[in-house]
């Protein structure tokens, strides 16, 4: 099954790493950012962050395994990851 869909194991590994780990990092950033942006939100901000975060995770994995190449997968998931990461660094750095 695997042979016909993906070129080789390396391809699968690369996609898994960016999809699963990148997706998880994206989800974590979503929670952190939501809490940062809604400081008065408390538990409800945490809940919203988790809702967004888990949706991001799902989307990342599906995209990482759907796009044409592993390189593209890294771009599709990596770009928002870098963007959110930069946002968080800026916002949390400015606040502290």
């Amino acid at each position, binding site marked *: 099954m695997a042979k*016909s869909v993906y070129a080789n194991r390396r391809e699968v590994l690369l996609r898994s790493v960016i999809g699963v780990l990148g997706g998880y990092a994206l989800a974590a950033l979503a929670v952190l950012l939501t809490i940062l942006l809604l400081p008065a939100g408390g538990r409800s901000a945490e809940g919203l962050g988790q809702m967004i975060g888990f949706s991001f995770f799902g989307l990342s994995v*599906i995209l990482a395994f759907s796009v044409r190449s592993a390189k593209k997968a890294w771009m599709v998931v990596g770009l928002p990851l870098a963007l959110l990461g930069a946002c968080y660094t800026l916002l949390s750095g400015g606040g502290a």
Partner: protein
Amino acid sequence: MSAGVRQKNAWLHGWAGLLLGWLMFAIFVTGTIAFFRQEVTYWMQPELHDSDPGEPLEMARMAIDRLEHIAPDAREWQIELPSEREPQLSVSWEADGAEADSASSAFAADRARAEEAAAQANARGGRPRDPGVAVDPATGAIIHPRETAGGDFLYHFHYQLHFMSRGSGMLLVGLVTLAMFIAILSGIVTHKKIFKDFFTFRRRKGQRSWLDAHNAAAVFALPFHLMITFSGLLLIGGTLLPFSGQERNRERQGEMEQQAPTDLAAGSSLPLSKILHTAQREWSVPVGRLSFDRRANTVELSSQRNDSLFLRPGGGPGRNLTFDGTDGTLLEREDNLASDGIDRTNRAIRALHLGRFADWQLRWLYFVAGIGGTVMVATGLVLWSVKRAAKRRDALIPIGQRLAEILNIGAVAGLNLAIATYFWANRLVPAGTPNRAELEIRLFFIAWTVTYLHAAARKPQVAWVEQLMVGGGLFALLPILSFATGSLWLPSAVASGNWIVAGFDAVCLLTATVMFCAARFITRGSERDNVAQDFPIVDRSLVPAE
């Protein structure tokens, strides 16, 4: 969507489903039963089956009278009025530090027994429980139901597993849920003819039939599957994404330390009828619990179930009314409604998962949707094996495939057999056995372990059939076992209008039928000439039609 994307998602669907599929099935099965967790616990305590609930006012009076005898020194009393789901009247008390032998002599033994049972239950874990007993509403007799973890065991298993810490259990369940989430999403992408094949089930077509069943179970209850998985993620979100930066604050910690017991209010002077009447006027749902704070002389009434998705979905009732204990005036009405849109969404999603708002009709539909989920996971697991079996033409079986087959059998047929064993143990282990709740759980796991060993020792086909037959037999005979051990069973339950026991027995018989049918299906399948080879092993939905 292009065929390539669909094919890639089929690959992802297969691996996301298989990797943790066995645990996924166990979580789905125990979680589905957990929709009836209180009913299952009630079935597992046949001592309670004989008492019929009466009028709320009379029952509350009776309960107060009993509490005054059993726990006159307690600073808190709770009365749980019978409900649709738990039709017994129970009372409990909280009296830490006070003299246990203040109970009047006739009830001293009852009190000691209840406090020991509570200590044992708390040692097992879960939410701390106060000592309590059941009261027969008609006669006022004290009932000590047999000690059992009941439906709570299956409920706890479905989100924190067993034999490991709560934290690691929840983490593992969280990972399974993430895999499930991915499997559902990729399953939607890969399913090409979601509308065209909506009602389609082709019988006796080998792999095609399995795929049709898998699709139907997945698509019909798709909103449920998505909801239950996503809300499941949110419910253990704190374990999976622990980045909130704030500690969960334990409530009620400070207020526990109080002065020595002085001036405990007597229950008999309480204007109960006025209080219950007010509650009926204020709420559209019946009263569930009455809590007496005997130092402040107040009574708090809690609603039996929520009538809105925006109320606190769990960990306590959504609506409370506090009354003065002397004249019965309404002091405070508390409704734990969500404050803003985010909170509302949050609560609604969680409430949908827990389903505590559901009346019995809707609860059954939840149960059916849950069964749909178990069928979806089971057929998915079997499909994986069937595909592999069809592909290999020689007798050589790779070790990985053999292992997957063993796990399939133990996870699907074996779990059902183990659950049946759990219920059998409940009827067979004598009521007075020390630590019998733990013993029931042990027997469950012993039975489950044996099914894996059995699957490893026998040929797959034979192991499937034998386990399904034995499990089905255990379920089929369960009502008869109840009868033999002197409990209510299907005919007598129907005759006395005890629909919980009747429903439980009926579900057992239905489960048995399904298991027998599955066994027959597998037997017939192996008798015919290698069915799988007669039909293309390649999943037709994965191949571009053009």
